[in-house]
């Protein structure tokens, strides 16, 4: 069990939670979190938002029972977490576009702090959030509210494109790569429902041309061309 240092609403329905302790993790990796013994039953996967030597932070959107319960937690309450899990983004060099849609911006903050030579593209449906935080770590942040942030990204300008957001956005990025015959790497971080989070139960499998892969171990970050994305 780990102690919560703070749990603050940063925009409507979006919370930033800080948990005390010494944690590890690479860009794009995630933790399984839970605040209940049994109900809700499964732990919830959340990406690393930020990490320092004495705490870890997550950014989450309240969508259902589990995240609702997280939002009710206060400073001094405790949570259970297991991680870091998943492969994370590979070590990359070269010009990189970090593209996030909605709550998909969560892993990009940690990424932007560690990668050099990046441009950040953040898309929101209604209201932007954490703009100041992103601006404080990078001078190349583009924000779009409404419409598709992917349209703003000129793929050819980059060696790598990392996309994190709703499945529709991942699909669009995959399609854009094909249409534009883009030869750089398009990475997507998939959000499949998970149970064990460590590769034992096979409920989060992703299909692709090379067979099935576990989103929680071989993913959640895949080359777009490696995976079939369906809703």
């Amino acid at each position, binding site marked *: 069990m780990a102690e919560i240092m703070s749990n603050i609403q940063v925009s409507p329905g979006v919370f930033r939670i800080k948990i005390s302790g010494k944690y590890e993790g690479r860009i794009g990796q995630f933790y399984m979190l839970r605040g209940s013994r049994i109900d809700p*039953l*499964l732990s919830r996967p959340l990406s690393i938002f930020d990490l320092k030597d004495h705490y870890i932070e997550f950014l989450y959107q309240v969508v259902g029972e589990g995240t609702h319960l997280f939002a009710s937690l206060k400073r001094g309450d405790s949570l259970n977490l*297991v991680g870091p899990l998943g492969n994370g983004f590979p070590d990359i060099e070269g010009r990189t576009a970090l593209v996030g849609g909605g709550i998909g911006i969560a892993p990009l903050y940690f990424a932007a702090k560690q990668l050099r030579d990046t441009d950040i593209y953040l898309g929101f449906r209604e209201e932007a959030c954490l703009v100041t935080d992103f601006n404080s770590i990078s001078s190349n942040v583009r924000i779009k509210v409404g419409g598709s942030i992917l349209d703003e990204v000129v793929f050819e300008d980059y060696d790598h494109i990392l996309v994190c957001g709703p499945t529709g956005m991942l699909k669009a990025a995959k399609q854009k790569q094909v249409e534009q015959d883009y030869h750089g790497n398009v990475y997507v971080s998939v959000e499949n429902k998970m149970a*064990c989070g460590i590769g*034992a139960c*096979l409920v989060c499998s992703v*299909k692709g041309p090379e067979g099935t892969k576990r989103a929680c171990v071989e993913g959640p970050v895949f080359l777009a061309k490696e995976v079939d994305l369906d809703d």
Partner: protein
Amino acid sequence: MINLSGSIAGVHFKNPLVMASGTFGFGKEYAQYYDISVLGGIAGKGLTLHPKSGNEGLRVFETPSGMLNSVGLENPGIKHFLENEAGFWEGLDLARIVNLGGDHIDEYIEGALLINQDSRIREAKGLKAVDIIELNISCPNVKEGGLAYGIKTEKAREVVREVRAVTSIPLVIKLSPNAEDLVSMAVMCEEEGADGVSLINTISAMKIDVYKRKSVFRNLYAGLSGPAIKPIALRMVHQVASRVNIPVIGVGGITSATDVIEFIMAGASLVQIGTYNFVNIHAGEELLSGITEFMNNEGIQTLDEIRGII
């Protein structure tokens, strides 16, 4: 001194905790988190003769105190297991159970033959990787319209008899709660020479997306597991245990030491832990200390003192 040990057909279990098939991989994943040799045993991911890529579409849906799964027996096939995973099992100091599935009777038989043959080869080198075969008869009978073997006693009898005939490895039959007559199914297993029965597998269940107006699962139905099914599993174990003389392994919804004790009191020799592994990554070791503490507090020396007392 508290003694938690038990046995099935001469196979020793240091305690009644066995990890359930499909929820524990082949043990490697959880071994990163605790020393799995503290467990009584593990049942590996269900294997079929040929590799299976599993079901398309969504495979999991959380329900109140439970979950639905539609993995569809994704597995690398028996050969791959024997060549790549069984080596890890050789080194484990616990009871190792291979869970065997199949789409038709010939697959079950051929699968059992492969495992049997492999065991002989290992034995000649003084090695062992498999202690028990657990036959999963909940698989759909593809040849006869997809109805699971585990529904009708006489259909299941054919599978149990044929597999029993081709292997000398201790054989446990994993029963489906969807069986027409679960007690007659268990009695049949005993008649056909099975060394034990394990129950229950997941309960056939459903979830509808009312906005899309269709089942969330491509296969329509999925299997319900977790605490929601425990009271049903317990009743079924009680009914079966009072009618057969072979050991019964109780499975379904266990999440605490007292849940384990309930199954033992209902007549189970051993128990299996499935979904709880997803909830608590240290489930095995924590349940073990919980049981020990319970027995200490209650002044119980061996599980025999409380087994089947209800």
